[in-house]
């Protein structure tokens, strides 16, 4: 890679987190210093100023998702929102039932909340997905029981960008009178997300995935028809209509609001630009042999592509270009666990293809030049790693790798 001219590290991991938009930072700054008040202080100007800022941000977030501002509950992020939606509904609706339906490819914040609910006596059905990452609507409907309280399906998947059929799921939930919760962390601010239009009653979001600050997010909670409530998981001063106590993170919330407003105005154009760049990246990389895109190409976020480079291990591959490009891999070797991506495994990818996967997620600040550079660097890396790969050599010799007797360890 020495022949390529040195450039700054290119960030193609925007699904992990996005940089703050400078306009967001600018909006936040006064709220650290001169406007530092506690939004719950009702007796003086400092408090009123802070409260006003929070109210304004709430309007900005509500406008983005076309809901009433009173339906937006601020939290510390999507992890907390997921926990609050699931555990809070489980507690609140205990009398109705104890069954929840979710999907195997959900984020850990959802899956682990469900595990906890099972420990608390709840029952959870984990739906399968097909090889493109889509749930089966008939299987969903068949899983609904008289004691089902909630269906939890994420809007867009963080690893593959696959978008679930939200409208159809919403109709099924409405027909059976069960709540529909969606973790929309990866979709909000990037594609139109209107929970009311598709019958979503609870929805998690996070500022740091949409060019806002880390440590702030929200839960949308439907107010009318049906009036949804969740039991607080954090007890204290009764902030956020009693659903989430704790002094509000005013600068963070202001930043979230600003990020939402920017997204609302710029989303359409940005999505178009990013999908063009994503397609360019994808087409460039698919020129390599034995390279496959993971996830439904017809129902996918515009800025994401997840690609398996067969017979190359993801972490090793990333090491060839991690001075130039930042991405993430579904390979086990990148995480502390030794299991490859459970999302890709649930889609029926073999462990070998899951180990060979790289997720590229573009963002607001990605340029065409960076994409072209990435194509070059990744292609070089793949070719280099294949020269080092014994299974690539075996594949090239026409050996059927399925028939080799491997020594598992």
């Amino acid at each position, binding site marked *: 890679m020495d022949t390529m001219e040195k450039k700054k590290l290119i960030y193609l991991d925007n699904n992990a987190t996005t940089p703050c938009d400078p306009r967001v930072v600018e909006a936040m700054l006064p709220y650290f210093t001169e406007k530092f008040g506690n939004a719950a202080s009702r007796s003086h100007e400092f408090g009123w100023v802070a409260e006003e800022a929070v109210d304004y941000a709430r309007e900005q977030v509500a406008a983005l998702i076309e809901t009433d501002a009173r339906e937006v509950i601020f939290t510390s992020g999507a992890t907390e929102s997921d926990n609050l939606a699931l555990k809070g509904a489980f507690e609140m609706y205990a009398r109705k039932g104890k069954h929840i339906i979710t999907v195997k490819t959900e984020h850990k914040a959802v899956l682990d909340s469900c595990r906890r609910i099972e420990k608390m006596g709840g029952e959870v059905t984990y739906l399968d997905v097909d090889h493109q990452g889509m749930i089966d609507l008939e299987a969903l409907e068949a899983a609904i029981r008289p004691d089902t309280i909630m269906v939890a399906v994420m809007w867009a998947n963080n690893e593959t960008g696959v978008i679930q059929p939200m409208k159809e799921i919403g109709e099924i939930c409405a027909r059976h009178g069960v709540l529909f919760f969606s973790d929309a962390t990866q979709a909000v601010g990037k594609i139109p997300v209107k929970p009311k239009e598709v019958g979503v009653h609870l929805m998690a979001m996070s500022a740091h995935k949409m060019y806002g600050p880390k440590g702030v997010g929200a839960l949308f909670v439907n107010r009318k028809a049906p009036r949804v409530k969740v039991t607080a998981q954090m007890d204290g001063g009764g902030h956020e209509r009693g659903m989430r106590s704790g002094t509000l993170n005013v600068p963070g919330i202001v930043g979230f609001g600003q990020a939402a407003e920017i997204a609302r105005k710029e989303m359409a154009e940005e999505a178009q630009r990013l999908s063009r760049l994503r397609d360019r990246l994808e087409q460039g990389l698919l020129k390599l042999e034995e390279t496959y895109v993971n996830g439904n190409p017809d129902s996918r976020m515009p800025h994401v592509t997840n690609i398996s480079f067969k017979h190359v291990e993801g972490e090793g591959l990333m090491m060839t270009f991690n001075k130039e490009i930042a991405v993430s891999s579904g390979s086990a070797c990148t995480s502390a666990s030794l299991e490859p991506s459970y999302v890709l495994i649930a889609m029926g990818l073999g462990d*070998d293809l899951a180990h060979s996967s790289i997720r590229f997620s573009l963002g607001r600040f990605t340029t065409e030049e960076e994409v072209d550079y990435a194509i070059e660097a990744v292609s070089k890396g793949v070719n280099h790693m294949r020269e*080092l*790969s*014994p299974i690539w050599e075996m594949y090239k010799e026409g050996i059927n790798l399925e028939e080799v007797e491997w*020594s598992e360890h």
Partner: protein
Amino acid sequence: MAYSEKVLDHFNNPRNVGTLDKSKKNVGTGLVGAPECGDVMRLQIEVDEETGIIKDAKFKTFGCGSAIASSSLATEWLKGKPIEEALEIDNMAIVEELELPPVKIHCSVLAEDAIKAAIEDYKKKNGQA
């Protein structure tokens, strides 16, 4: 996780990448790991039949950076060693040399396994097993 300088060096300039002629009687091949586990290592030795000294060693590895570095280092250590001495190469020596963190110890284990498998294959071919 940051990689040690030594891992990076072996990763960026892997030593002795390649393939020896399996059909030769004095070549031993060890293939360990599995694609499903995310790591496959193939290590080959060519032995001088007169002296029992390993005169060449080659590897190919599908795996993370530490696995590639471990096998590259292993081939360096193997060259010029009598096979009996080569059998004594211990994975912890690789861990120490490459400063591998605990989660990467299994990559070094794989290298030790590959060495043992290659020597065993050589011995089998030559009626010494």
